[in-house]
């Protein structure tokens, strides 16, 4: 009997010891990330039947389990990836937001200074110091554009680096999870028990992985995990891993994309397959905000520089020569996809800077047609041939032949702000004076026809008008214009349709149509009478001089003109309004993201707290357990002492 008591005591001692170790383990790991508290599963040992009844045989420990709620854990993982995505997006956008918050470093002060000094120049057209100031302020404005866009490029580089880092981290986690899968599976199959701490480690890795990318876990077989990332791409299957990798975009060499690597090939993943986590957040930031902001600042640069140049070319400089461009703006960036099979080469140029939008354009050759898609609103135009002009952008095919599904990306404004430069430093070349062209209606005109919008094109400087050009209206032919001298072809554009008439042939008159001859264009409208004439002549020294400020006024007033296009709208904005709209766009988005990311962080905190409430270590509880197991240990010891005492009673029986 005493031996039975002793073995019961020893089982109790053993159970208490295991309890103490487990409590100690819990205390030791109270702050270990991902640790789930462990509990001893204790049961009464199989009782022994002595005929008069079952006598208990003490306690036995059937297992040590971790307290783990799989549903809560899944919630943590999914909330974590959403929260990390918003955090990454919001952190990046906040850097732009902060950059734009500096009112002294924004675009507006530099723009006000530039146009302010132009106003001054208009009042002192021949004053050299004022001309110097205009050039200096133009350079300062360019510097602002360069610096804002340069900062955006840095942010873009940062996104590339972070994507590469995150992909590296994902791959490392994948390997660690796969190797833990292996160990866990082996230890379950050999011992039949779950290795709690290893499983905690693996679950913690899953949580860490979900910070980088949306992660889904499917348990399989003997405690193994299959891990899917993003939009269901297998990353870990049992002991095997698949890699994410980075690749440069086929249409944009400066852009790092995330790709999925299988043994045979590398597939670039679109934004939709990469939702969640830092990776998802960064990609979303780049697609939705960074590209847009950079295009918008580029659009303002193109519109300002382009419209200024156009106006500048209408004037005469201090030496009496036609003005040239003040700003150099880069041509649109056109990239053909590296997957194109045809040899077609596209070239693009900006023909109307005030019609250029902030969108990128995609040109696809499909079934013999050119599909031009404005990326921002997915507006598609189909053309059977090139060249075509879309939103002030001329697209033409210079060489090669297209194959079906050949794909091109055009970014009209992306690099404009960072690469614009000043075209000249000679103060005399500022074209403040007059207009290079003079228009006159014939003195004997009797009809109501009039000439307007007389413009010298960008090629005027290289091929200026040498004499007078005159149009004579002829109602008898009928309704035609004849050009004298008749050495040049005439192009008439009305409602977007252009017709070119060869040199010398009569030109059909359409009221309001734009008539282009060589490097000049004008609009004739109204109802001219038979024989009415309209002439254009180059400005000679006879009608200009040092105090001529006519073009200076027009240049200075560009500031209040509306020259920046808006997508999907016929109205245009001034440069300053376009900039302030860009700032408020970034501000609104940043605000929205700050709110969402805070809400998402709260949700994460709350599911984490629920999980912690169930699985986390509470030191007071462990202190109680310590006392409990300590007392159990003491009681078991006492029992064994009693068993020993009882045995001694038996031994002492004989000695008495």
């Amino acid at each position: 009997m005493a031996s039975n008591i002793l073995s019961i005591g020893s089982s109790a001692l053993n159970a208490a010891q295991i309890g103490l170790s487990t409590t100690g383990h819990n205390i030791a790991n109270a702050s270990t990330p991902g640790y789930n508290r462990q509990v001893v599963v204790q049961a009464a040992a199989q009782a022994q039947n002595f005929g008069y009844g079952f006598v208990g045989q003490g306690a036995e420990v059937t297992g040590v389990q971790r307290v783990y709620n799989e549903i809560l854990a899944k919630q943590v993982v999914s909330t974590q990836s959403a929260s990390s995505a918003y955090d990454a997006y919001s952190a990046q956008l906040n850097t732009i937001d902060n950059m734009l918050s500096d009112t002294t470093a924004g675009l507006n002060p530099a723009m006000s200074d530039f146009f302010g000094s132009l106003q001054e120049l208009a009042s002192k057209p021949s004053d050299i110091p004022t001309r110097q100031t205009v050039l200096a302020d133009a350079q300062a404005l360019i510097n602002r554009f360069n610096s804002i866009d340069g900062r955006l490029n840095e942010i873009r580089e940062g996104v590339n680096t972070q994507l590469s880092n995150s992909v590296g981290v994902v791959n490392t986690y994948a390997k660690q999870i796969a190797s833990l899968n292996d160990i866990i599976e082996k230890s379950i199959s050999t011992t039949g028990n779950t290795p709690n701490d290893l499983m905690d480690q693996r679950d913690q890795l899953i949580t860490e992985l979900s910070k980088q990318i949306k992660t889904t876990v499917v348990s399989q077989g003997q405690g193994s995990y299959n891990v899917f990332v993003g939009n269901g791409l297998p990353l870990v299957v049992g002991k095997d891993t698949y890699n994410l990798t980075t690749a440069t975009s086929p249409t944009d060499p400066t852009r790092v994309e995330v790709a999925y690597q299988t043994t045979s090939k590398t597939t670039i993943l679109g934004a939709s397959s990469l939702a969640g986590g830092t990776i998802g957040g960064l990609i979303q930031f780049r697609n939705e905000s960074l590209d847009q902001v950079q295009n918008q600042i580029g659009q303002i640069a193109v519109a300002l520089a382009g419209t200024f140049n156009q106006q500048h070319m209408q004037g005469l400089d201090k030496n009496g020569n036609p003005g040239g461009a003040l700003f150099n703006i880069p041509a649109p960036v056109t990239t053909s996809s590296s997957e194109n099979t045809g040899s077609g080469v596209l070239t693009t140029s900006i023909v109307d800077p005030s019609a250029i939008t902030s969108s990128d354009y995609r040109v696809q050759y499909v079934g013999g047609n050119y599909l031009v898609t404005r990326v921002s609103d997915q507006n598609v135009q189909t053309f059977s041939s090139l060249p075509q002009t879309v939103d002030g952008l001329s697209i033409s095919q210079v060489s090669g032949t297209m194959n079906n599904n050949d794909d091109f990306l055009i970014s009209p404004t992306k690099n404009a702000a960072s690469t614009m430069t000043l075209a000249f430093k000679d103060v005399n070349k500022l074209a403040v004076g007059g207009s290079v062209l003079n228009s006159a209606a014939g003195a004997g005109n009797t009809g109501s026809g009039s000439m307007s919008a007389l413009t010298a094109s960008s090629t005027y400087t290289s091929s200026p008008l040498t004499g007078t050009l005159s149009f004579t209206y002829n109602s008898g032919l009928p309704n035609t214009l004849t050009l004298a001298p008749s050495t040049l072809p005439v192009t008439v554009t009305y409602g977007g349709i252009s017709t070119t008439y060869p040199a010398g042939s009569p030109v059909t008159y359409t009221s309001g149509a734009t008539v282009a001859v060589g490097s000049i264009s004008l609009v004739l409208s109204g109802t001219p009478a038979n024989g009415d004439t309209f002439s254009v002549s180059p400005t000679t020294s006879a009608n200009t001089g040092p105090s001529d400020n006519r073009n200076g006024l027009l240049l200075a007033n560009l500031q209040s003109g509306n020259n920046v296009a808006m997508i999907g709208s016929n109205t245009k904005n001034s440069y300053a309004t376009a900039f302030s709209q860009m700032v408020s766009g970034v501000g609104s988005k940043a605000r929205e993201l700050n709110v969402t990311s805070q809400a998402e962080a709260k949700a994460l905190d709350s599911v984490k707290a629920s999980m912690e409430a169930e699985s986390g270590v509470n030191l007071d509880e462990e202190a109680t357990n310590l006392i409990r197991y300590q007392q159990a240990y003491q009681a078991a010891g006492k029992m064994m002492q009693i068993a020993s005492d009882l045995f001694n009673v038996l031994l002492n029986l004989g000695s008495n």
Partner: protein
Amino acid sequence: MRISTNTIYQSGISKITNLQADQTRLQGQISTGKRFVTPSDDPVAAARVLEVSHNKDLNNSYADVRKTAQTNLETLESSLGNITNLLVSAQSTLVAAGNGAYSNAERSNLGKELKNSLDALVSMANAKDAYGNYMYAGFKSDAPAFVANATGASYSGDSNVQLLQVDAQRQMEVSVPGDAVFQAGGADVFATLTNVVNLLNTPITNAATQAAFTSGLATAIDGMKTSVDNVLNVRASIGAKLNELDSLNLAGQDRDLQYDKTLSNLQDLDYAAAVSDLSKNQTIMDAAQKSFVATTKLSLFNFI
């Protein structure tokens, strides 16, 4: 409810961190005096601030242009004032020359006097502005507007007028071409004076020369009157423009004040509210820190 020890620390820390973030934001607002620090704090107001500041800058640049316009017009006005004085004095000399009691020698002296006036007038008509430009030469301001010749003076400027953008919707003429001052309305003041000088230098010897003198003088007096009226008209229009500039200045200053007020409404911080928020935040922070320390001090381990 069961709470893990980690949660106690975590929530304590995160609450204190939030309070610190609020403090930093309030401190930022107080130190800049602005209601918002980044556009995301109030995107609509941030955009409005940019627009209003831009309009304010624009308004100020028109004010600068108005100063130039005013200087130009005042220079013109003062020059035309001198010209008027000269013409009026020449006019009275002309009237006096009609005095039948004057001898040929006396008339010849008057002729010399008027010749001096003519020279002075040509020089005045070739006056330069502060930038060394000939004021009355139109756009061709790098050469003298008038060149004296045997019959008076010929105009070598052009008839262009310089316009300045003195307000958003107003372009003002701030120069007058010389031909419009001295040779308008059918009266060329240089020719008039030259004729009269010649006339006074021609001795009256008989009835025919007397008649020629009388009719020539009458023509000259008429011409001179037209010329004086002409100059006075130009001066009047300059005066009207200067008045207009004054009222545009007033309107501009008014707008500037309005812009300042709008900017202040949009971005200025309510200091009382911000300072009170900050002190409230400090009190809460203090309590949060103390209670955090107090709660975390409680542990069963202290008793075993």
